[in-house]
């Protein structure tokens, strides 16, 4: 009995120290990019010109959709924009842009200066719609497939790596 207690105590401490050691190299910053393989939520976002709404039905039509949250006041959005422009040339991919907490004039200027990669353009004036998608910062992008499953999440500006990954996915059919 004594031996068992001793071995248990020893084991517990070894385990704790082990976990501490392993954790030293882990990233403490929280990231939602592994919240994937879920359904795209039901949504209804006003289009940018306020003429109609976009819903899940608009995404069902396409093989792949990239939903990109952006704003004119966001510096990293400018940095990722060229990648979006390149992606907009892919036939297999539809890009839905959601203008986040922005002013119409500034947003229009942004697009006219840097180009408009969006097949569909919507706006989320108060940011509430983005919460449905689990967005917590700008820019963020979500790659969705025809079955309305979220395949990938990109937190932060799209990198060249991200671009390559997206190409690999949408051209894998």
């Amino acid at each position, binding site marked *: 009995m004594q031996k068992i207690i001793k071995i248990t105590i020893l084991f517990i401490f070894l385990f704790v120290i082990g976990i501490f050691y392993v954790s030293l190299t882990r990233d403490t910053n*929280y990231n939602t990019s592994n919240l994937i393989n879920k359904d795209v939520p039901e949504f209804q976002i006003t289009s940018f010109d306020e003429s109609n709404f976009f819903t899940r039905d608009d995404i069902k039509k396409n093989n792949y959709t990239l939903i990109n949250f952006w704003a004119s006041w966001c510096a990293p959005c400018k940095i990722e924009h060229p990648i979006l422009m390149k992606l907009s040339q892919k036939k297999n991919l539809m890009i839905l842009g959601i203008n986040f907490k922005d002013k119409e004039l500034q947003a229009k200027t942004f697009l006219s200066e840097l180009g408009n990669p969006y097949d569909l353009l919507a706006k989320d004036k108060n*940011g509430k719609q983005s919460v449905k998608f*689990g967005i917590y910062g700008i820019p963020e992008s979500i790659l969705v497939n025809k079955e309305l499953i979220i395949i990938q999440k990109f937190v932060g500006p799209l990198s060249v790596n991200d671009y390559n990954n997206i190409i690999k996915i949408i051209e894998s059919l």
Partner: protein
Amino acid sequence: MKLNLLIFIFIFFSKFSFAKENIIDPNLIHKNLRCLVCQGQSISDSNSDFAQTIKLVVKDLIDEGKTEEEIYSFMSDKYGDWIVFKPQFNIQNSLLWVLPYIFLIFGGFFIFSFLKKRQ
């Protein structure tokens, strides 16, 4: 021994006696949600853009009649378990919730068994 049992029953019973409020206080919910872009602050304490958006969404959810638990579920579904300060009652967290009371009870038995020997 009896004392032990009493304590255990009392604590067990108390788990169910947290008052179920009819009107949900949004501040209570804000306090229990974590600001994802801050260093450990709650939505209630944070002035960040993200916090303000979440406050709006929480208000909407309350107006829709969602319960407190449903609101936390909603948030953790969208953002992961990290956003709620109260760990969920699932298998992964079972040890967390249960171990302290297991210790309390076993500790009590342990001590009283020591004492009993010498009665």
